[in-house]
């Protein structure tokens, strides 16, 4: 370290020093003081630190390399200050070189939080808002923004329900409100509503502010019900900086399922093993590579600041023949014209390419029974291919009846190409010192091409090749006019904000399909659809518009008492005229009692907060209130020429309206031990009424569902955050952040019935007609519904009762002697926590993230399928060896168990080391300001009793199946990964 500084001194400081000394020869006995300022956090130089001679206006700031030079006399005191660090004062004395290690300021009261159409100082907040900044996640190698959010904020649950590359990630803020519609939060990127996280480059993010309670999110009205993630991207500042980062990751599935060997299976099926059989897990899963490269250039030249970045991700899936690519480019430009006018232009473009991704990763094949579920239950006694490369047998009489899932996966070519271009312009003009007018105009353009080819279509029949091509084009615009007035009267500060906003979107889609191509061997047959028969075409368009009026008043008295009130009026084209307008008010207050505390007391600050707000959900899509006659019901009376036919009118409720969520929140923030321990606790209760619920219709009334505003769901819970800095010295610092959330979900009302039974979100294992889930008044969403398994009937039982067959499953019965179907578990976790640790010692930094998810069960339908239930054929799991026999009467039935049986409900609780990173930063390299090497591991271990691959995955999707969570029917497990990378700053 000393040597480094010496070198730096020689190279940079000495010439400057000489120059300055020369220039100030004849001045007042002052000498030039020089030095380098580094951060205690990671030891890197800190540019832009203000260095002032105390009590004078004589000041300077550090250059890009953290160096400064200032004239001062030996009696002077130098003050070093920089946002985010503690201010340091040093007497000059006789020194000519003063190097400073800036200590990170734990309190950071001046941190600014983006609250929607404006900002607020963190210390002034009245609502429940968590902030995650780039500093929090930059020590973790990641390619997805969702990973940066995971385990970092109380009340924000981020579940990776699939390990598929490019798969969807489930984000819930304070539980699930909606039963039939999406519970994913609203994403606002640089003021533009409705962004997507998956296409975003995490490196572009400066801060993420999560608006958790309704007093904070009501400003987003009809789109705020699920909470809001407000993302602010980086801006350039200071000297030009160039950064390059590269990392590579290898991933594997965390474990294999223990199955019967081909020989054991052959014994059951009464067949013989051919050529040693096949280990389908080995054939299907593979070691996957990921490469990520990142380039950044940023800085400020005069009145123009810029931040430019490019990123390329190339990720393979742990399932063979599946991968994900993403390119992204960003340019954020900000220009200042005089004192009053600021113009910002953010441009973002991305291309994502998903290869063989199904249902956002919830399924591993186009047929829900295929993929992972398919390979585990397929006949292991036969080889996949003949020596000549052709498939040995596409179907087998044993195991599942599907077409060989390996062949299906090998012969498929499904691509989704998504191009996004996002431009937004921000013009801010200070009309007067107190009045500002900002226009925010943004447009998002997304073009999606889906190309799919199935050489051997998935399913239960060997079919001819099929292909399809579709194109979807989304354009949105947003125009926000924001007028704000901010004035201080004595101790009182008042801020008023008014917004008029228009948002519109239009999607145009077209698609074509055909099959049975006249020419064989066309792997890209989606470009040659005209060669196939059964050609189908479709086209459609949907449109939506929202018009909004927003007002907010913020009032603060003496920085002790804060009051905020908001009102948003939204008018959505999704509803008919009488139900179109929604009013979303909120009010919140905070009282800071820090001033009442003794100066040197235990507590440094205490703040009380409380708020109430109403938010909505309007996301039913276009034409949700207009019944239609479905097309595509053509019929060929002559067996060859289809005539156009239409279907029965769909059921629609004309009086559909908003789903409304009302939330109260009370919170307490305090810090003690010189701000090194900060604690925040929030309690909330939110009630969602007029639920947009897809009410199932009995088959005798036509079947399907009808969308209605019925019912109510309640979520209550606590969010705790404990942020500590146990050790902060010049060489060694340690930050530990622990957050824990509880959520109790309850269905209050279903609009009449006490329960509604539902399937597993469109997944239907084994062709079973039974309902796997129940929505029940008084219970949480995600209630498992099924039979209670009591073991097997024994020989003695069969002897006593002639109707009983020994070895068959025994269930709890109702009064009439029928199998009792009741609640047998719940798939919604009610306790989650995260522990983030960053330890820095000199040039070494260590980060680890531990997370826990508790108090929930998983429907292990995969295990069920492997244990010979009704419809699944012979047993396949190695546990099946211990099944009931007359000689060994175990509680494992010989077969015929129901799939929806408590036997297949397992505790999902897990604790996982989601990240462990170790980095070393080199600082004494020529022309390079810093060079960091790091190694990292993700999901290195998971502590769980779950028998399946991964207790976190689910086959029911992330957005709108909160009534059917934690359903493991072959979702792709989250891999265990090892990363090595380097980051260079010039």
């Amino acid at each position, binding site marked *: 370290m000393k040597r480094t500084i010496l070198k730096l001194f020689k190279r940079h400081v000495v010439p400057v020093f000489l120059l300055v000394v020369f220039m100030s020869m004849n001045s007042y006995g002052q000498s030039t003081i020089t030095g380098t300022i580094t951060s205690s956090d990671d030891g890197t130089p800190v540019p832009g630190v203000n260095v002032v001679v105390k009590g004078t206006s004589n000041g300077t700031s550090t250059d890009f390399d953290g160096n400064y030079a200032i004239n001062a006399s030996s009696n002077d005191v130098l003050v070093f200050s920089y946002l985010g660090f503690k201010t340091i004062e040093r007497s000059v004395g006789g020194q000519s070189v003063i190097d400073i290690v800036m200590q990170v300021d734990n309190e950071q009261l001046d941190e600014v939080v983006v609250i929607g159409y404006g900002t607020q100082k963190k210390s002034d907040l009245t609502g429940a808002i968590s902030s995650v900044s780039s500093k929090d996640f930059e020590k973790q190698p990641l390619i997805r923004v969702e990973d940066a959010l995971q385990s970092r904020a109380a009340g924000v649950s981020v579940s990776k329900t699939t390990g598929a590359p490019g798969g969807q990630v489930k984000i819930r803020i304070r539980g699930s409100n909606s039963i039939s519609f999406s519970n994913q939060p609203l994403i606002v990127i640089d003021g533009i509503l409705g962004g997507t996280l998956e296409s975003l480059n995490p490196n572009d993010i400066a801060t993420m502010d999560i608006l958790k309670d309704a007093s904070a999110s009501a400003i987003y009205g009809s789109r705020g019900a699920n909470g809001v993630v407000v993302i602010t991207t980086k801006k350039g500042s200071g000297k030009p900086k160039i950064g390059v980062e590269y990392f590579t990751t290898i991933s594997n599935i965390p474990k294999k399922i223990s199955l019967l060997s081909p020989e054991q299976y052959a014994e059951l099926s009464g067949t013989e093993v051919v050529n040693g059989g096949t280990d389908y897990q080995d054939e299907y899963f593979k070691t996957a590579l990921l490469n990520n490269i990142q380039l950044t250039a940023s800085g400020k030249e005069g009145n123009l600041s810029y931040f430019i970045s490019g990123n390329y991700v190339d990720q393979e899936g742990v399932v063979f023949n599946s991968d994900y690519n993403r390119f992204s480019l960003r340019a954020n430009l900000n220009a200042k014209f005089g004192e009053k006018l600021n113009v910002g232009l953010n441009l973002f473009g991305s291309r994502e390419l998903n290869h063989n991704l199904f249902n956002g990763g919830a399924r591993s094949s186009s047929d829900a029974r295929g993929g992972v579920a398919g390979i585990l239950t397929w006949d292991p006694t036969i080889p996949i291919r003949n020596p000549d490369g052709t498939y040995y047998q596409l179907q*087998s009489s044993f195991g599942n009846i599907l077409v060989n899932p390996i062949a299906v996966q090998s012969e498929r070519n499904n691509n989704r190409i998504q191009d996004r271009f996002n431009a937004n312009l921000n013009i801010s003009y200070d009309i007067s010192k107190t009045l500002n007018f900002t226009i925010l105009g943004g447009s998002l353009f997304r073009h999606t091409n889906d190309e799919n080819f199935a050489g051997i279509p998935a399913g239960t029949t060997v079919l001819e090749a099929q292909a399809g091509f579709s194109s979807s084009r989304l354009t949105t615009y947003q125009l926000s006019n924001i007028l704000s007035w901010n004035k201080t009267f004595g101790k009182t500060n008042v801020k008023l904000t*008014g917004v008029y906003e228009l948002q519109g979107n239009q999607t145009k889609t077209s698609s074509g399909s055909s099959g049975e191509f006249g020419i064989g061997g066309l792997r890209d047959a989606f470009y040659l659809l005209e060669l196939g028969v059964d050609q189908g075409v479709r086209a459609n368009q949907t449109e939506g518009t929202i018009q909004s009026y927003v007002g907010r008043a913020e009032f603060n008295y003496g920085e002790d008492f804060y009051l905020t009130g908001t009102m948003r009026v939204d008018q959505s*084209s999704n509803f008919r005229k009488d139900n179109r307008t929604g009013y979303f008010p909120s009010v919140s207050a905070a009282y800071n009692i820090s001033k009442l505390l003794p100066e040197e007391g235990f507590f440094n600050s205490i703040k009380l907060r409380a708020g109430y707000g109403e938010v909505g959900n309007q996301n039913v899509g276009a034409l949700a209130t207009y019944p239609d006659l479905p097309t595509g019901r053509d019929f060929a009376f002559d067996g060859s020429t289809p005539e156009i036919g239409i279907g029965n009118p769909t059921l629609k409720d004309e009086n559909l309206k908003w789903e409304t969520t009302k939330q109260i929140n009370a919170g307490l923030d305090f810090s003690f031990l010189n701000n090194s321990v900060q604690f925040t606790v929030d309690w909330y209760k939110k009630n969602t009424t007029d639920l947009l619920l897809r009410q199932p219709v009995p088959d005798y009334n036509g079947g399907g569902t009808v969308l209605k505003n019925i019912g109510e769901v309640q979520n209550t819970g606590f969010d705790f955050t404990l942020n500590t800095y146990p050790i902060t010295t010049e060489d060694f610092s340690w930050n530990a952040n622990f957050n824990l959330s509880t959520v109790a979900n309850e269905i209050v009302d279903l609009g009449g019935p006490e329960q509604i039974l539902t399937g597993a979100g469109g997944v239907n294992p084994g062709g079973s007609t039974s309902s796997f889930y129940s929505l029940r008044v008084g219970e949480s969403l995600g209630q498992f519904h099924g039979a209670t398994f009591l073991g097997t009937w024994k020989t003695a039982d069969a002897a006593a009762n002639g109707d009983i067959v020994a070895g*068959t499953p025994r269930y709890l019965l109702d009064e009439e002697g029928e199998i009792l179907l009741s609640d047998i578990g719940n798939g919604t976790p009610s306790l989650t926590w995260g522990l983030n640790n960053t330890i820095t010692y000199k040039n070494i930094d260590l980060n680890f993230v531990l997370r826990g998810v508790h108090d929930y069960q998983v429907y292990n339908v995969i295990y069920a399928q492997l244990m010979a239930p009704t*419809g699944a054929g012979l047993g396949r799991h190695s546990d099946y060896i211990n099944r009931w026999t007359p000689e060994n009467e175990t509680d494992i039935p010989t077969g*015929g168990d129901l799939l929806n049986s408590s036997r297949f409900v397992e505790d999902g609780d897990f604790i996982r080391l989601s990240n462990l990173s170790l980095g070393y930063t080199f600082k004494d390299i020529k022309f390079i300001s810093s060079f960091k090497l790091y190694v990292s591991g993700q999901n290195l271990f998971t502590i769980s009793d779950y028998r399946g691959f991964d207790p976190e995955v689910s086959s029911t999707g992330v957005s709108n199946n909160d009534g059917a969570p934690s359903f493991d029917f072959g979702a792709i497990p989250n891999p265990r990964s090892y990363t090595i990378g380097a980051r260079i700053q010039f």
Partner: protein
Amino acid sequence: MKIAEIKTTNLGRLLSVFFLMVSVYSCADLDEDPGKTQLSPSTLNSVETLGVLVTGMYRTVQNDARWTDFYIAGFGGDDITTFSAGNKQGFREADWRIQTSLSERTNRAWSAPYSMIAIANTAINAAPDITVSEEDQESFNTIIGEAYFMRAFAYMHLTRTFGEVVINLEVNSLEDRELSSVEQVYQQIESDLQQAETLLPDVYPGIVAIGARPSKGAAKGFLARLYMHWAGFPINDSSKYAMAAAKAKEVIDGGYGYGLAPSMREMWTVANRFNHNEGVFTMVFCDELCDIGNRTTGRLGFPVDAGGWNETFGEIAFFEDMEAAAMAEGTMARFEDTYILEVIPRRDNPNGADWRNFQNEPHPILRKVGGGDMEEVSLVVNSTNTPLNRYFMRYADVLLTYAEATGRSGGDAPEAWEALNQVRRRAAGLDPNTPDAAIDLTSGDLGELAFTERKWELAGEYERWHDLVRMDRIAEAFANRSPEERADVVNNRTPSATGPAAYFTPIPQSEIDLSPQLGN
């Protein structure tokens, strides 16, 4: 300036700017235009759109009637069985009449008829609001007649499978409904078929083969079938036999164009599926251009030796009895048209006659499932999605109904014996219309003789089970099971002629979950 003044000035400015920015963009258009991208139900106001809706109704029938589980009840018959393992438990439980409300594969037989009923209800209820020109009157009558016919067809499928079912005649209603008695359901079917009988033409014009769309004759044929059930279990109103006989006779005498096909086997080929007049009501499939074929036929009726699906097989005792009867009575032609007894050109090329030595378990192969012509390899033998017809009712069925109903109602008309004998002559490979003393029957219990003739004639068409139920003879049929039939390898269960699901399939649990009143 005083504070108050500053406030006023700024507020004034604030308000004027706000007013300006709101007025610049005039109010957004928030009214949707549903007509642009979708068809409104209000377009159901012409004969033309009603016709398009009825075309969609056929597709609705086809979407489900193409699958084997639509005929789940039929597995109870002694003619049909399935594989012991694999995913065939749902069929197995139907075969052995041990279904519960949780059994697999019972859903389609319940939901599909109600989809047909929903669309038929829409057509029937739209009819009064349509102004019909004189030239459209005939096609209008035909369309509405088809809707009535299809509604009756759907209710008959429901009640034959589940017994007591729900009657709903309204459009898009969300009312909770109770089960109706079997008799009430019969009355509804009767009333709809009588409407269809009035409205439908004698011969449906311009169709590919007779029976592809229903005529007056088809309505009468289904009335005859209804009365046969009404006369038997569970209502046992034997006065209905005479009505069945009368209706069947009207079909025979009415000039509707029906006749027995020269060869039974050819009806189950792609080449000759339209070259006969035996279909009274037939579902026509279109596999090549529409990819919506018949998935109850083809390879799914083959064993694994032929790379089959093991789904639908013949029962052993039935095969043996039929073979014996055919040899005794000279009807070997029909026996050979009922079972595949030649080489199946797939995988190991097993010989159908050699079924006792099949790899997994021994079962005869039904030709009405596997296909009439083993040379139709790509369209039938290799496929589970074939263009083969599904005959919901054949003219042979009508002839035998007439003979049986006549016998059971105490009649002895020579025309009834002639109807029976026409079927027997074809079964012997002879011209149906030329009397032959070696084959013709002239004495005995006409009702019973015709009942037995139906057993052989309609084997493998999912009809036998319904005959057993209406005559309440399921216990006898179970008693006749071959000891060679594979036992339940998994659960060691046995067939039951006495359990709660012996006669009728329990309503699927998923429906009871939505309507608990159906569960009691």
